[in-house]
Every structure is written in C-alpha cells, then in structure tokens.
C-alpha cells in the first residue's frame, strides 16, 4: 500500500508541498515587480523556516499534541481576544499581533487549533459520559452557555461605550459564578467517581470502565473553562464598553439554553454523530468564529467552519440530525445576514448573485480578476507580462488574487498544472490518513485536507467568479507568513501521523 515502507518521512508529501510552494514563489516574484520589497524572498524565508519546523514536528509524536489539543485551542482563543484588544489595524481589519519584528495573524494558526480540537473531540467518543439526573444534565450541558454567551455579547459590544451589562444582569453572572459552576464541578466529580464504581448506566455507548484522569478536566465539557471564562469576564470588566442588553441578544441566549437542553434528548446509542454530540463542538467553534468575524475576516471564519463541518460529516451523522443541523444552519445564515455581515460584505455577495445590477465599485475586483484570468488564454501572456498586474487593475494581487496573476501569465495550461498539484497533495494526505494508527491521526489528516481543499476551492473560485469574493488566501501562494506557517504546522502534523504510523 505504501511506496516506501521503510522511510519514516513521507518524501512524496514533502515534494508535493515544495513543488506547490516553488511555483507560488515564482508567481510571487512576478507579482512583486510592482512592489518595493521583494515579496518572493520574504515568502521564501518563511517557507524554508516553516518546512524545517514541520519536519521537526514530524519526529515528535502527534499523540503529545493530542493531549494538549484543548489547551492549545483555548490559548489560541485567548490570542484572538488579544487581537481584538491590542491588534494592529490594516485595511480596516484588526488581524495582526506584533511579536518583535514580525506580525503574527492568530486567526491563521486558529485553523490548526480548530482541527486539533475537532479531531480530539471526535476521536474521544469512547469517553463521552452521560449524566444521569435531569438536574445534572442541565448543570453539565448548560454550564458553558453562560460564559460563552456572555463572551459573545461582550465581544459584540466591544466598541459600544453604552453597554451596561453589569448593572442590569450582574446577578446572573454572580449566580453563575458562585452557584452554578461550583455545583457543576461538584456533580462532574461526583459522577466521575460513581462511574469509577462501575455504574454502566451512565455510559450510553458501552465504554466500559472509565478511568478518570487529569485529561478529562481539559475536555470541552469540563466546567473549568466556564469558570475560567467567567472569572476572566469579571476581571476584564469595564463599565465603559458595556451597553444595554438588546432583546434579540437575550433571545439568543435563551435559544442556546433551550437548544442545549432539548438536544440532550436526541442522545442515541449508535456510532454516528448525533445532534447531541454537536453541542460541544458547536460551542467550541462559536468562540473563534465570533472572534474572527469581529475582526472582521469573513473568509477565514467561513473556511474554519467549512473545515470543521467537513470533519463532522466525515465522522458521519444521523440523517435526522443532519437535516435538522442543515435547516438550523440555513435559518441562522439568513438571520445573520444583517447581524454578522458588514454592508460591503453584503454588497459583494449581492454583486455575485446579480452581477448585472452591480455598479463598478463592488464587482470591480471580481470582474478585473476574471478579465485577467480570461485574457491568459491557453498558454498565457508569459512570465512578468500580466498587464492587469502591472497597471494595478488587480486588487490584492499578492494575497487573495495571486492566482489570477498566474492564470493571466501562464494560461489554462498553468492553471491545470496547479490544480493537478493540489489534487495530488490532497490525494497524498488522504493516503496518509488511511495508514494512520488511530482516529486522531485520521482526523488531523482529514481536517488538514478539508482546510486545504476549501481554501483552494474558495480562493480560485473567487478569482474566476464562481464563488463570491470573501477574502481568503491561496495556501502557500498568497503572500503572508502566518498563513504559510499555519499550513506547514499542519503538514508537520500529517508528516508526524505518517512517521508514527506504526506497522499494521
């Protein structure tokens, strides 16, 4: 099944990644002719450094990462909060944190964090525990709702000086902090101890004896996070950025509570992911998603959710749960049109669906990109001869629209080569997944493959006008160190999965 059974490094993957990066650098050097700094060289340094890092990670056992998945995830969530608080603003978006001379984009690293958390959650299904009594069910399942909802509200009103949450709803938070959470923790520990006594009634999936370890405290259902988040909330409290709680926000929280309670009834006893099992992942995902949309960075948030959804679907869902989930997703996306999307984002999507009604302002980027790609023809205009680039008709030509430069200069043949290389890379990642020794390894590979796929599909689709312009990089091609670093970290994990694949 494997070409080189003895090698521990998967050289095929490394070759594919380097081939793609190499072409990307060639393309960037063409784009960079209009820019003062040499983009290709800076990018090349990032690629080289990241590759070494990836090979280092490959040697480490990824099971170490498995244990640290949730702490890594929550650390990254904290860094996203930090971005909103002290981040740098570029092009009206607050995405970067300066670390010494370089600027890091935590939302890029968050992609890996989400994959880790999802992989961890779904590979842990043998340890899902079910509380017995209704009271403990409520306490356990609802406890993260409070802090997360509060966090959402807080972030939403970050720049609103009139928010006076403390005055009006302080008793809820105080109650949650001093009554709810201690109760939840007490129950959690109590049930664990009773499970240890061999009471199989709690386990819905025949997991056998549950040995309660310190790991469990880092599970998403652990009250520890709720406690931490609430404590943090109170610590960071500042009346100045609070505003009256809108009615719809209150409804949102109510909906969370009702949904969570209701969902526990869907608990089923087969191996497929049920609605109930989505509670924790959805709550987990909502944190980075909200934080990233707030930056605002719609593209990254969407690709995060898309990759996570792909992983969930890969683990298969009950049909009924799937239908309900899709229905809720649709309703939510319609409802969030005005809440989540900024006017310019709405315009881009409108311009995509009804290009004829568009004025030059909104659809301009998309049209110029299509002109660039189309004018490339079969063989392209040749390296460095993109008129769309040279005369600056292409927006973001070194980041989001980097592919249209390639398409214009190298033509259809060049595009075919790039798509073939990405397909080959995806095939190789899936190939590694199939040889992984455990479910966490499989899920990391699938998560990375999904992330890569969505990035490539949305970015190229956006460039050639089959997807609305959302602002997303082309992996390894778009200029940006954080993006390169994040993908190479992912490749490192995949290499590690291969390295530690064991012998079947």
């Amino acid at each position: 099944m494997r070409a080189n059974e003895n090698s521990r490094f998967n050289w095929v993957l490394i070759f594919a990644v380097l081939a793609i990066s190499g072409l990307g650098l060639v393309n960037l050097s063409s784009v960079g002719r209009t820019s003062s700094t040499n983009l290709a060289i800076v990018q090349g340094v990032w690629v080289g450094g990241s590759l070494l890092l990836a090979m280092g990670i490959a040697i480490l056992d990824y099971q170490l990462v498995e244990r640290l998945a949730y702490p890594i995830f929550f650390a990254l969530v904290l860094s996203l909060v930090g971005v909103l608080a002290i981040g740098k603003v570029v092009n009206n978006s607050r995405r970067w944190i300066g670390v010494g001379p370089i600027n890091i984009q935590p939302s890029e690293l968050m992609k890996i964090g989400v994959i880790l958390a999802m992989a961890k959650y779904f590979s842990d299904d043998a340890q899902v525990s079910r509380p017995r009594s209704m009271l403990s069910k409520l306490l356990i399942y609802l406890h993260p709702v409070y802090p997360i909802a509060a966090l959402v509200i807080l972030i939403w009103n970050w720049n609103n000086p009139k928010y006076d949450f403390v005055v009006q709803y302080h008793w809820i938070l105080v109650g949650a902090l001093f009554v709810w959470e201690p109760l939840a923790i007490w129950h959690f520990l109590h049930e664990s101890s009773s499970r240890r006594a061999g009471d199989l009634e709690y386990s819905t999936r025949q997991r056998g004896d549950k040995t309660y370890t310190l790991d469990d405290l880092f599970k998403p259902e652990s009250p520890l996070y709720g406690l931490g988040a609430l404590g943090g909330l109170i610590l960071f409290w500042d009346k100045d950025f609070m505003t009256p709680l809108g009615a719809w926000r209150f409804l949102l929280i109510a909906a969370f509570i009702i949904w969570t309670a209701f969902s526990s009834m869907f608990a089923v006893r087969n191996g497929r992911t049920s609605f109930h099992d989505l509670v924790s992942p959805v709550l987990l995902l909502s944190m980075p998603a909200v934080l990233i949309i707030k930056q605002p960075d719609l593209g990254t948030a969407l690709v995060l959710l898309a990759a996570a959804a792909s992983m969930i679907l890969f683990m298969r869902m009950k049909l009924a749960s799937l239908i309900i989930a899709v229905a809720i997703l649709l309703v939510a996306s319609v409802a969030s049109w005005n809440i989540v999307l900024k006017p310019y984002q709405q315009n881009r999507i409108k311009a995509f669906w009804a290009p004829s009604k568009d004025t030059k302002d909104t659809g301009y980027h998309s049209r110029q990109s299509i002109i660039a790609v189309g004018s490339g023809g079969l063989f392209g205009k040749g390296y460095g001869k993109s008129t769309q680039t040279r005369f600056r008709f292409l927006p973001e030509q070194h980041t989001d629209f980097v592919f249209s430069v390639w398409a214009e200069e190298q033509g259809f043949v060049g595009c075919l080569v790039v798509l073939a290389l990405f397909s080959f890379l995806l095939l190789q990642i899936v190939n590694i997944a199939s040889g992984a020794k455990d479910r966490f390894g499989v899920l990391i590979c699938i998560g990375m493959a999904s992330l890569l796929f969505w990035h490539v599909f949305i970015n190229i689709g956006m460039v050639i006008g089959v997807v609305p312009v959302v602002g997303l990089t082309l992996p390894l091609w778009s200029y940006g160190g954080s993006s390169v670093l994040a993908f190479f970290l992912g490749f490192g994990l995949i290499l590690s999965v291969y390295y530690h694949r064991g012998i079947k």
Partner: protein
Amino acid sequence: MSLFSTKSDLPNYKLRYAVFLGIVLLAFLVLLVRLRKIQLVQGNQYREMSIDNFVSERRVVPFRGMIYDRNGSLLVDNQPSFDLYLTPAFCTKESFEKTMTRLTEYLGLNEEEVDKTTRLYSNRKGLDRFLPILVHREMSWDELAIVEQNKDKLEGVEVQPAVKRVYPMGKLAAHLLGYLGEISPSELAARKGGDYRQGDYIGKAGVEKAFEKSLHGKSGLKKVVVDAKGQKMPEAIAKKILGDNGVIVPVKPGANLILSIDARLQKLAEERFPGQEGAVVAVEPKTGFILAMVSKPAFDPNLISGNVDVRVWSALVHDVDKPLTNRATQQHYPPGSTFKPFTGLAALSTEGFTSETKELCTGGLRFGDHYFRCWRSGGHGRLSIHRAVVQSCDVFFYKAGLAAGIDRIAQVARSFGFGSKSGIRSCIEVPGIIPDKAWYKAHTKWGFLPGFTLSDSIGQGDVNVTPLQLAMAYAALSNGGILYRPQVVLREETPDGKVIKQYEPIVRGHVDASDENLKVLVEALTGVVNEAGGTAYYRRPRNVTFKAAGKTGTAQVVKQFADRGRNLPYDFRDHALFAGWAPADDPEIAVAVINEHGRHGSSGAAPLVMEMITYYLVQLRAEKTDDNEDGSLDEDPTKKKSLGGVN
C-alpha cells in the same frame, strides 16, 4: 484504554476517503470547466477587455500658434503650466473635505472653485466618478511643488500639464492682439462637431479671435497606456506595449502669425501718448498694413486670458473709461478740421471752384439766423484753398462746403472709406457716420436743414469717423488715391518657419477725386507742417531729410461754450486730432492720432505723430541698415528680445 480499540473502526473509513476525494475532484472539475470557458472559449474577448482596460484614447490638444511682430519680436507666447484635477472615484467622502481644505491652503482656491468642485463631486455617480474634475488652472511652480510634496495627503488629486497663453509685453497692442477665454456654450454650439470641447480656450477678441482658425490648429488622437487609477504610464512603457507610438490622428499645431505691426513703434506710441484716452493708428500708405494701433486706456491680456479672476474682469467691464473698447475702431469721433481736405476735394470737383478760388474770412459767417465762427475770431482775410488748409480756416470751408453741397461732400468722403467699415479682420468696427440729405431725412425730426452743411464741412455736426478710417483716408490721400483695406497679419507660418500663407495688400477702391485736385491737397497738407503759419509748423520734424504732411484737428465736444479756457471741465474739453504722413511726396507711414480732451490738435496730437514718423523713418531705418551695431540703440524703447521663441 477503553474496551473499543480506537483503531478497530479505521478500516471502515475506506468509503469515506473515496467520497472525500470524489467531492474534491468534482469541485476541482467545476473550477476547470469554468477556467476552460473563460480562458479558452471567451479568451479573446477577455484579452480585448484587458487591453481596453489600459489603453485609453486621449485627445492631444494642439499647440496654439504664437504671434510675432514684423521684426520677429514675440508678442504672444505659450508657457507650460499645470492644471489640478480631482477624480472623485479615488477620493473618499471622508477625505474629500480634508483634501479641499488642504488645496485651499496651498493654492488659495477661491469660493467659486471650491463650490464648483464640491457640487461636481457630489453629483457624479457611477462611472462618471472616474472623470477628473478640473479644480484649479495654471498653478505656479511653487504651488506645483507644494502639491507634489503633499501628494499622499491629497487623495485623488492629479496634476496635468497644460499650456498658458502669455503676452510678454503686457498691455502692448492689447486691443489688437485680443485675449483668450474659456469657450462659451454658444460658441461651442456654433462649432459643433468641430475641434473644441468644454473647457477649451478660444480667442475672444482681436487677432486671437479673428485668426482663431489658423492659431488653433487641429487636435490629434493618441492611444495612451493608463493604470487602474487612470495615471498615464511613461512613454517608454507605452511604446513597448502598444508596439507603435500610438498616434491615431496626428496633431496639427496652430500656425504662427507674423503681424505687420512694429512692436517698437507701437511701444513708442503707447508710451508717448500725450493724453489719457484716445487712439493712434499707423499704417503703411502703399499697402494698408497696420504698423501700430493703440487704444488708450488699455488692459493687460495676461490678467483676463485663461484663468480669469472674476473681480479683475468685472472691474474692467465696469470701468467708466472702457479699457476693453478698442477706440481705434469701435469709437465714433468727430474728425474736426482733419475732415477739411475731403470737403475741399468735394468743392474742387464742382464747377467753378478751383484751387485759385479765394474766399474772405472775417472770423465768422452768418448763415440764416445763425453765426458760424472761425476758430480765429479775427479772421484770415482772403485766401485760397492752399492757405485755408494750411491755416485751417473754418470760414473758407463753410463756403467750400456750401459750394459742393452736402451730398457731394458725403460722396467724396465715402470714397475715402468714411461712413463704412474698413474691413479689418481683427477688430470690431463701427461704420462711422457721413451724413447726406437722405441721412438727415432718416435720422432727424426736421430732415435736412442747409445749416447742417456748414458744421459738417469742418468735421463737426454729425460727421463721425473712427481713427482707423482717418488713417486709411489720409493714406489714400498720400498715395495717389488708392484706398486699401487695413490688414494686420503679414503671413502665417508653420512652427518651423515655413510660410503657409502670405497676405497681399487688398485695394478697397479708388477715391473720387482727380489727380490734380489730390495734388493740390497734398501740397496744402505739406504746407500745414512746413509753411510758416501752418497749424503744425512748430511741430515739424527738425534735422531730417524728409517732409511730413498732415492736418491738425480740434473737435468740439460741446457745441458752444462761453469759456473755452483752462478751467473747462475735463469732459467738456475739445478732442485733439492729427492725421498725416511722411515723406510727403513718397509716403511710407501714415498716422492718425486722437487724443480725447487734448484741447488742440497742434499741441495735443501733432507732436506724437511727428515723433512716430521720425522714429519710424530715421531711428528704425538706421537700425535696419546697421543691424550689427546694436549697442548704440539705447534709446530704443522696445529693445526686448523674444521671451521664449519656442518653435
């Protein structure tokens, strides 16, 4: 570890991998199908669109022709200047106000400019937002430097080179040269389909207007390479990309005009003009070409050409002295005694009136119930036409006028070009008035009364002429009776000096007078300057080899006034006139001067004519013959070389 091996269900994933890869390939296939459509099927179409993107056709405005005097001195020049534009599409609403504040600070924009820009900025929608708005014209170098330094703070601001019309000699010959202005909607409509656009400059007066067609040239059309912000790329890049120089229609520069005027003579006339208001016209008697044309007071065309300050303009328009009026052609003047030669010619042509006919002047003539005075109240005694002209006897010409009759006087005067437009192309003209019986019937309540003949005979009454007509009539007197059409332009040349068109003298007609009679008058007019007792005898040029001829004139502004002494209010004082030529027997220059309220022709006009004649015939001749010794010409008032004879 748990009872279930986490590995145990891994083999079941095979189908999932297949589905995953299937979806991936399907999605990539969608991309490929789309790529095939836009790159292979519609590729050529998009290629054209990409070319349309950066190739834009721009009008190349022709270089307006320059204007020189007959000796090659530059009278009208073009200088590079810079216009400031603002493109709304590249200037956000937030930064617009800031940008305008900064521009006002740097350039001192006036309210009109700010209002206009703000209005256009907010009115422009959609694609129109990519059309640049002209904010400010003709920036100075200092302003350009400030704008260029702060360009990153001025969103959407662009500087484009332009050409500014410059009149290096200021007020010199301003009325003749004219000035430029932005084309008006009606002018634009009249030239529909022509070579003009909104905002172009067009000649508004003088030679600039009359020879607009020659001066303007013809616009070209050129492909230029622009970037997304409409910024023009350097020529080298454009050439490489377009493969040629991009010319679609070559531009044809305007023709340079060589005027017949002599800037030095013009300058002398302007500087030495003895009064405040009036006109001077100097012509070549044997060709009709104008040597100088002055109208006082004058204006500086630099101030009103192109970017006009509204205040300056309205001050000029509302000035009671009417500096914009060309008094040489647009103003009626009573010719006074300068009209007497024509009355004389009319009389000589009648039966029984000869050059020997003598009349008695006793200081006045009673006619009907009215007493017509002679200027010399003591009277001139008995004199013939020769002495009557020399001494400018009024009574003689009353009688001569009566002998000829008003209609005959009018006939002769009209044959000298009075009473009709001279046909000069470059100036607006009034026709003047030469009254006859029919004219009185049409224009007065009582029709013709015999007494009118007397006052008309001596150039008072209803006779009205323009200084140009006067000069042309005296030129005709001097040259043997040929009336020329006055012209200003000698020739048109291409920028590299090739003659396009040479203007030849145009004969308007021959005067209605016999050669003998003309000779009598020429001799009499020579006597005015050269015989003792002549009204201009004391003004004659001294120490020269030629003789001048001419006639003084003192035209009454108010008919009868008790006290004509020094205390007369300015507006009531007589006009001083002199018309003459030199040399008397072989005329090379004829000059007419009207000095409004200059009191006496002999003192208020004759000295300037003599000075001009002498300067033209002596000093300028001398310069011409020894061109190399330029150091000796320090008295030359127009010693100014061309400021930028760029071809």
